[in-house]
């Protein structure tokens, strides 16, 4: 879900992808802590959904 937000927002621009990653950290989402295999954390998922909505991307 996190990578989807980054990819959709960055639209292929690597510089923007890095900046979105940093913005997620500063919003309280420790991006590198999670992988596709990580167990679902409802609180983190809700936070990412809210961030996605702010960014105007669909997850």
């Amino acid at each position, binding site marked *: 879900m996190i990578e989807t937000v980054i990819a959709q927002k960055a639209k292929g621009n690597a510089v923007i992808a890095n900046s979105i990653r940093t913005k997620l950290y*500063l919003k309280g989402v420790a991006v590198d802590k999670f992988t596709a295999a990580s167990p679902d954390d409802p609180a983190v998922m809700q936070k990412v959904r809210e961030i996605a909505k702010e960014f105007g991307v669909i997850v």
Partner: protein
Amino acid sequence: MSIKTLSIKGTDSRDVARQAREALADFQTKLMLFFASSDYENPEAALAETFPDAEIIGSSAHSEYCNAGYTSGSVSIMAMDAGSVEDVCVQVVENIGAELELRDVLNGMHAHFGGADEILANFERYVGIVLFESSAKAEEIFMDRLGTATDLLFVGGSSSAADGGKSLVYANGRSYTGAAVLAILKTTNGYDVLKTQSAHIFSERKLAVTKSDLHNRILYEFDHRPCGEVYAEVLGVGQDEIQNYFVCNPLGVVAGDEIFVRTFNQIQDGGITLHCGLPEGTEINVLKIGDIVDDTRKALDEAISYEPAGVINFNCLYRTLEILNKDQVEPYCALFGRYPSIGFSTNGEAFFGHINETSTVLVIK
């Protein structure tokens, strides 16, 4: 020369503007950035009257930097012509302590340059400067909203003031409190941004912020335990001693290779107040402060391998006080004396978010 830098001490703001006009005769200033000691009254009005064709933005300052010099009671000015800045759009957002929606402001600024698609297509040429008036203490929320409203990188800092002086930001020939000045620059030859905080990871142990008051910048809990107790545990000191470590061991959000420093203020209301709020869910490390001069030299040398047109240094007031205490002003300023540069001692720095105890640097090619 597409950028000129000046350090002026005048009898008053009109005298400063007069000296600037003499120094900038035959120079077609497109954008003027200035950092004025809060000793000066209405420098923005005097400069706007003297340079009616230039966009002028600035901030009050506790102390100022210009080239290899460090001063107080002066005005540092950077004048940029079309050789460095092709176009600029300035907006002021007032009442930044209120709930903010910045999309309309940013959409308008994007439109000035032909829209977001034009900016995205020439991303390496566009950069933003943000100057906060610091009394609102709303920079972290503002930077979060700004980062949502635009993909552009904004770099800058928060105003400061000399003892007894007033903190202000300036634009459009006016002064503002509780406001942010935004400027988007379309640079002629591009730019670089760097950040150096002279802070390193003290402990690899990650601490999760589980209770905090972001708006009031109060930290209560790490990992569901009182934050002071956990902080003391990481440092290996008694809980009654932690205040002695607040300056040397700040907190940091570690995002990849970047560290975003949050400094402590004081123990209060069952928590610890910070100079920058932390949202719940954030993971932090405890940091240790290193050698400011060495770390700044490394950061500048790594990032600037060319002859820049100009360098703008938003240097935390804590760092200024530290280099004053350690008698390192001369070697620190010598690093910036290698370029046409200005800077000031800030009450917080901006780079993606609001940060502390850091130097954020905009390099104009």
